């Protein structure tokens, strides 16, 4: 049990702080929502009603979609583009999907390789693209959920001004939907650009996200 925890400590740590942050967001979001309800002489809602409402879900979904988009782009673009000196990049000259030997597939598969790595055709294609495939599905799903829940929140606001509600298609063209979307995308893209460049020149001793402290700035893909 202790060994299992130690071997999976990184995932457990991030799942735990994710849940703690989500619960914290639910409590403070609920408090803010009810403050606004009171200001508009409207009834307050229970925590349960709030966390199942579009008001809470849109705030969660708009952040989730941008995180998954970041990873989708990072996984796909790093196949083809490199950054000399970065820990997050392949060395220059290795751009592309690489040979079967380098990827340990087909006759180059190891005895303990995944079964589909030894196969050909659809199964090999699915395994070869499963990481970006699942990430992309979650991105599209959460972005669509942002669209659906964002429309409900926007329409509640429309009705409070005695304006007509918008269809899903109409809401997809509003500046509000794109503002919610782009404000999240830009921060994710900046974060990726930052780690790509910072990892060339800066070090964190012991971290696999950094080169060894004494590694030259020019060496690419080296992790400590």
């Amino acid at each position, binding site marked *: 049990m202790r060994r299992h925890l130690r071997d999976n400590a990184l995932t457990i740590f991030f799942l735990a702080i994710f849940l703690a942050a989500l619960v914290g967001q639910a409590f403070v979001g609920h408090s803010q929502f009810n403050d606004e309800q009171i200001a508009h*002489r409207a009834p307050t809602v229970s925590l349960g*009603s709030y966390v*199942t*409402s579009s008001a809470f879900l849109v705030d969660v979904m708009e952040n989730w979609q941008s995180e998954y988009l970041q990873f989708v782009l990072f996984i796909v673009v790093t196949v083809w583009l490199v950054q000399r000196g970065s820990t997050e990049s392949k060395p220059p000259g290795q751009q592309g999907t690489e040979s079967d030997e380098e990827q340990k597939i087909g006759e180059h598969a190891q005895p303990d390789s995944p079964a589909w790595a030894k196969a050909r055709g659809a199964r090999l294609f699915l395994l070869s693209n499963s990481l970006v495939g699942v990430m992309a599905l979650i991105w599209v799903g959460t972005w669509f959920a942002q669209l659906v829940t964002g429309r409900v*929140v926007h329409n509640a606001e*429309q009705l409070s001004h*005695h*304006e*007509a509600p918008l269809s899903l298609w109409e809401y997809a063209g509003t500046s509000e939907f794109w503002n919610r979307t782009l404000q999240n995308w830009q921060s994710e893209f900046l974060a990726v650009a930052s780690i790509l460049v910072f990892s060339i020149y800066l070090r964190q001793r012991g971290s696999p996200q950094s080169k060894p402290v004494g590694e030259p700035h020019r060496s690419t893909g080296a992790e400590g």
Partner: protein
Amino acid sequence: MLRALAALAAAASLIGCGISDDRAQARAVVERFLDAVRAGDGEAACAQLGESTVRALETQSGQACERVITRLEHEGGAVTRTRVYITSAIVELRGGERAFLDRGPEGWRISAVGCRPQDGPPQAYPMACEAEA
């Protein structure tokens, strides 16, 4: 995984039930209002309005809500569609008029009635209403 999906489906159906209840309640409030106006029962009609709507109507007309509400120039008609978004609702009537409602401490109450689009697209401009908060 299957249990998580079942829980998600149950939660989604509960949310669906909640919205469906709200829709029925909002529609019933508008129907009670229209019935009361048709019957000349000002007291019953005003009971379907929100507090701030009653106040605005009385301030504008200089008369009690019960006296003025049955004399408003609105067409009415059967309810054709009700939509609910969180604590707001819109009810559309056959003649093209709309009523807006908010969910207040006493349940759904009308915030505006006899509303029609005016200058531009109704998604971009507030509608002109016979009575509104």
